[in-house]
């Protein structure tokens, strides 16, 4: 036998299974990984530095573009940080709206993760099912903010608009006839809340469908069981949060342990894994989608009976009503100041975090009393996850690297920032 030596292989940055622009330098012994060195930063936009040059409200849009599959959760951490420094109380209704959209975002994120993860390791059809449901949730985003992804919906003091009373409908077009359009519009006759409710009523059955395809699937189990095992102690040491930590058996969820907004009034459970492998993390995320549906249902019920304010009426922070601006000089001044100079925060610093779909998404904000952040550090959950790739992939086969990237739920918008 001839002597084999380890060889080095380049993976990405344009590989479809790399979930974006990940470049891996793999040291291989045959087909076995000896070490993996991720090269990141190919999507680095210096969001933190850009934020230092803009007034607070103009940075909300940047937050959407961090983890671009869980947009509103990123905004949430940012507005929480601002509200925390200002010691601002926000109306109850906006808290419920935020929580509802956080959970919609969680489902959106997990559906994309599920579709892409399954596609990476050989199950094509799940992707198509997952995107069917994502479409409806993106319509919810569009109904409140006008955009399907980068919503910029949360504002310091509340949310930018109230929930609409009419759900936008499909219109007759050259690709669909009247019957098809009517079929698409069957649950869009009422308000947005009616639409979300009808979605939530059918969604658990959809999750059953995905589970039918995967949970007992022999190939799926062969590809995920025992792959990328992380012990609870290592998971903590490596800085894991979210489903990555819970998959290893640690019951830690900020929504329960350090509740923000109105999570403490809601009923939901925290799924926890036992083995810490990719299959457990899959099960945890699937169960999280069901729990999110439960939370959305409770928020819907509350919001239907409430007619409160959706944004604070402190006009130093939130814009006044547009109609008032035509009549009232003071409203006009407030509006002008808010959209030109912005507002100044008191001197201080804070770390605000939310349980984003991927883990703990935190904003460390330092204010020196100006109208712009002095320093904004974004604590992205994916960053420590990807840092552990070397450890998780070591000793596995090349094809398992794809499973591990998938199970980590990597999105480069937040890792490279």
């Amino acid at each position, binding site marked *: 036998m001839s002597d084999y030596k380890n060889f080095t292989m380049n993976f990405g940055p344009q590989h479809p299974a790399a979930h974006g622009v990940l470049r891996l330098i793999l040291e291989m012994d045959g087909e076995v990984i000896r070490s993996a060195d991720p090269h*990141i*930063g190919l999507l*680095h936009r*210096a969001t*933190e*530095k*850009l934020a230092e*040059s*803009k*007034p607070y409200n*103009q940075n909300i849009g940047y937050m959407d573009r961090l983890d671009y599959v869980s947009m509103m959760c990123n905004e949430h951490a940012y507005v929480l940080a601002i509200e*925390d420094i200002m010691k601002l109380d926000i109306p109850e209704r906006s808290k419920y709206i935020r929580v509802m959209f956080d959970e919609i975002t969680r489902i959106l994120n997990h559906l994309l993760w599920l579709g892409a993860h399954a596609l990476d390791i050989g199950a094509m059809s799940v992707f198509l099912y997952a995107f069917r449901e994502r479409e409806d949730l993106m319509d919810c985003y569009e109904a409140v903010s006008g955009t399907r992804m980068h919503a910029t919906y949360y504002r310091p003091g509340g949310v930018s608009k109230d929930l609409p009373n009419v759900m936008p409908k499909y219109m007759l077009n050259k690709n669909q006839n009247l019957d098809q359009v009517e079929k698409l519009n069957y649950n869009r006759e009422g308000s947005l809340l009616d639409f979300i409710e009808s979605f939530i009523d059918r969604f658990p059955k959809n999750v059953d469908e995905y589970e039918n395809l995967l949970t007992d699937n022999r190939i799926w189990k062969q590809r995920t069981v025992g792959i990328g095992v992380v012990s609870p102690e*290592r998971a*903590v*040491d*490596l*800085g894991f*949060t979210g489903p990555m930590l819970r998959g290893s058996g*640690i019951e*830690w969820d900020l929504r329960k*342990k*350090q509740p923000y907004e109105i999570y403490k009034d809601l009923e939901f459970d925290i799924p926890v894994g036992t083995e810490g492998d990719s299959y457990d993390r899959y099960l945890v995320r699937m169960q999280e989608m069901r729990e999110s549906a439960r939370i959305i249902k409770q928020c819907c019920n509350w919001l239907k009976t409430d007619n409160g304010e959706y944004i604070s009426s402190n006009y130093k922070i939130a814009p006044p009503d547009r109609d008032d601006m035509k009549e009232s000089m003071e409203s006009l001044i407030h509006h002008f100041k808010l959209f*030109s*100079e*912005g507002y*100044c925060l008191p*001197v*201080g*610093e*804070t*770390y*605000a975090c939310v349980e984003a779909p991927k883990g*703990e998404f*935190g904003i*460390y904000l*330092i204010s*020196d*009393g*100006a*109208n*712009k952040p*002095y*320093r904004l*550090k974004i*604590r992205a959950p994916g*960053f*420590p996850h*990807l*840092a*552990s790739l070397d*450890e998780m992939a070591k000793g596995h086969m090349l094809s398992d690297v794809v499973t591990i990237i998938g199970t980590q739920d990597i999105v480069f918008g937040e890792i*490279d*920032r």
Partner: protein
Amino acid sequence: MNKIRELLTDHIVDYIETDMITVIVEKSKLKMILTLLKEDKNLQFTQLIDLCAVDYIEYGKSEWQTREATSTGYNRGIKPTSHSRIDFSDETDDDDYELCVIYHLLSIKKNLRIRIKCFLDNSSLIIPSVTDLYAAADWYEREAYDLFGVLFEGHNDLRRILTDYGFIGHPFRKKFPLVGNTQVRYDPEQRKVINEPVDINPRTLVPKVIRKK
């Protein structure tokens, strides 16, 4: 809360309670304090949530100081040296920085958070690495080195992480211009991608204002 104060009181420079407990420590005692916090049975700060650096050189300095109205737009009130630089003819001093390294710890067992700040003296940007205490520190320290130039002693792979291969400078320092120093383009004559000084004019759309109430 009091436990932390009791445990650390002899070793720290300052103790502040804001959104969470914040302690300011000296560089020489940093690792000792982190070990104490991690191993104390009543605290168990076993997770490093975040590690970042901050450049305090422009803290509390506003750009906008004009009181009278003029007709020449925003730039009238902006001091050219305040935020990075406005004009590329301005001299900048690369040694102008005041760095601080900030650690956020989390205790999952006790549901506690703590922030540890360690200011660096400009004469030495070397700080002990905490990778042997927290595995998560590996990439965070690489990031702080890349963006701020903090040197972590004992880190065994202190490479740049976010910026491009061959990048020069530490871009998140306040004196580093927002638009950068170089731009790349394809040069048809040399038939390759070249680096050259940036030719766009940096401008300030909204000046930094500090209003005291």
